[in-house]
């Protein structure tokens, strides 16, 4: 089966579970490392970042006691999820990622060309997600210790573009708004709305544009080395044709250029496996789970995808006679 088709199916099922799961009494917990937005009225699971920000909004001495244990427990659950399927949360489960992928399909259907950032720009903007991650940790700590106004509570949730968008799938328009309570809330909710606009526009220019700046991806990348899900490259088999780089929605250059590093799950990788699918060299790339290679680059499969499965040659009249 085509892996990308399988991925779309898995993403759709995950979307239904996470957005409508609550309607069927499904609850996958509120420590999920994906944008299962807590603002969706009857969601089937909750995003880890919501609770994480609220848990950090406490005075520092409290972390020496019960609050610290609760925080460690939450991070432990998150880490467990992250270790098991690693960045596949982003590539295979994230509901917001699915929306971006669907917009990309729409772009393909409309025959609009992609644009690419220059390599320097790409490198420069890569750090944005780490800055956001640092802020979403520091701001709640500042709130808890009386240094920052409570209007900055859960800053990332206030500016997350998933918050206005995902509740719309349950007919809830209440989160698509600008909060005029104070200047910080106005700025943060305004930023969320601008990001929504950018998501729709940039989807026609670049694949998974917002994922490049997602602090959840930055958080997950802390567990890259210990994740059971991995992506291996055998540099000696690689011909540097560049197919993998062109197929990659996150435009990861290392996947084409690297020859020495075997594990290719980089900061931005979302484990969509498009690179493995696009690789024309036998076994140059392989996806592994707990050391077991479940998908390998295959020249034959690559050619089949490019040209369709080879049709059987029609028998000549001489052969027909022979068969008879």
């Amino acid at each position, binding site marked *: 089966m085509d892996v990308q088709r399988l991925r779309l199916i898995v993403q759709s099922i995950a979307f239904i579970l996470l957005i409508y799961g609550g309607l069927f009494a499904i609850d996958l917990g509120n420590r999920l490392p994906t944008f299962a937005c807590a603002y969706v009225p009857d969601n089937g699971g909750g995003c880890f970042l919501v609770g994480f920000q609220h848990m950090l909004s406490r*005075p520092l001495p409290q972390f020496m*006691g019960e609050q610290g244990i609760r925080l460690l427990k939450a991070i432990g659950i998150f880490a467990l999820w992250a270790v098991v399927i690693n960045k596949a949360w982003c590539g295979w489960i994230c509901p917001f990622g699915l929306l971006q992928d669907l917009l990309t399909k729409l772009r393909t259907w409309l025959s609009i060309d992609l644009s690419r950032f220059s390599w320097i720009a790409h490198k420069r903007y890569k750090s944005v997600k780490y800055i956001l991650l640092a802020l979403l940790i520091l701001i709640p700590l500042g*709130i808890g210790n009386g240094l920052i106004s409570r209007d900055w509570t859960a800053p990332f949730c206030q500016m997350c573009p998933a918050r*206005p968008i995902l509740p719309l799938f349950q007919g809830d*328009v209440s989160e698509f*708004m600008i*909060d005029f*309570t104070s200047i910080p809330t106005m700025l943060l909710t305004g930023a969320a709305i601008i990001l*929504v606009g950018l998501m729709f526009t940039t989807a026609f220019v670049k694949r998974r544009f917002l994922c490049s700046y997602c602090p959840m991806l930055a958080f997950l990348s802390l567990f890259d080395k210990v994740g059971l899900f991995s992506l291996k490259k055998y540099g000696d088999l690689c011909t540097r044709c560049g197919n993998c780089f062109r197929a990659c929605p996150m435009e990861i250059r290392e996947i084409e250029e690297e020859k020495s590093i075997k594990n290719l799950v980089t900061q931005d990788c979302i484990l969509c496996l498009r690179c493995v699918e696009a690789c024309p060299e036998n076994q140059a790339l392989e996806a592994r789970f707990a050391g077991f290679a479940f998908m390998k680059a295959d020249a034959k499969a690559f050619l089949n995808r490019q040209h369709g499965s080879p049709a059987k040659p029609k028998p000549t009249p001489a052969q027909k006679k022979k068969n008879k």
Partner: protein
Amino acid sequence: MKRILVFTACMGLGGLATAHFASANPARTKMPMVHEKMAMKHSGMDMKHGGKPARAGRCTPMIRDYYWLDYSRGMGMGRRMRVLHFKHNGFPPKPSANMRWGGGMRMGSPMPEKKPAAQSPVAAGGRDASSRSMAGGRRMAMRPNAHGRDDAPANAAFWLETPDKDIHRIDAQTPGKMSFPAPQWGLHKVFAYLDGGVKADVRRKHFAFYSFYSHGDKAVEKQPPVLDGNGYWEGKPEFQLTRIYADGRQRYSTQTGQQAKFRISLHGKPLKGVCVVMMTQKGWRNARTTDENGEVSFFIIKEAETAGGRESRRRSAKYLVVARHMEAYAGEIDGKRYADTRYLATMGLRVRPSQLEWESKSMAFLMAGFTVVAAGAAIAIRRHRRRAANNTKGA
């Protein structure tokens, strides 16, 4: 080009469908009638702030001799103790210690007057209060308990119902003031009962109710529930004032523009014709009588306007609901005979501004649309320039 046209048409149709859905769903989009005049029209009353009701009858909004539970927030994040005051009369309450004014005024609170810095705060209005100005906005702080009395006779008893429906006895540390932990996650209910004794051949029984939501604090140990109480607590208070939610889901805050419904019952049976009064901090009052099911509903009006025209969702106002009922129930207590029993129940509400007062959806849609257009134009221009540059190079 053809595909782009089809896509644009689909988007337009989708937008129209969304608009139609939004207008057809009154629960989400209907503007609540938050203004007082509308509320008066809605409630059939014609009265001004502190005025007298136009409708004559036995049920008047004048209430005397009532006890009520007032909630004051603990200070700082992660507070563990809840603080409640049991007060005698004195509603609307005066600003309390942690009440402050920033860019606007707190909903329903009287606007603090500007005073010269040299003036003694105690001398200002003869009130035992202190105020100070801070850079970047007005800020006012007053001493706690300087206004509104914590006044509870020793025989007042308090209980806490946790989300698990366990009942705990609460002890008042000082007369009328109690602080207690709320270890569980969910809606907590506090009941107060006071036997007012016999006055003018009428026995008076006072009940007070207050609900609050707690996010729980597991650091506080769960207390053992009271099983039998002191004889009064045999389950529920005999005279009950209960908040009813249309969809059965309890909420921890009430918003302006909502209909608040209450049920009055005596010994578990709904009471018809009980006079119920709603009071707000500015002095607006409304009186209504219960129907056959013992139910009465009030429109939660908006009382205060901020200078900027927009409210803060974090500001709340205190509203009080009072139900009174006289029953021809004779008896004797402490050697005093009485012919009737007067039941009086109060319930405090914290009312927050409705969502429409602090948010703007139209602005959000406009901003999103503007971003799409601006970013789209920027991308188109960039592509056009790049193509032109490539063509020049090629030539």
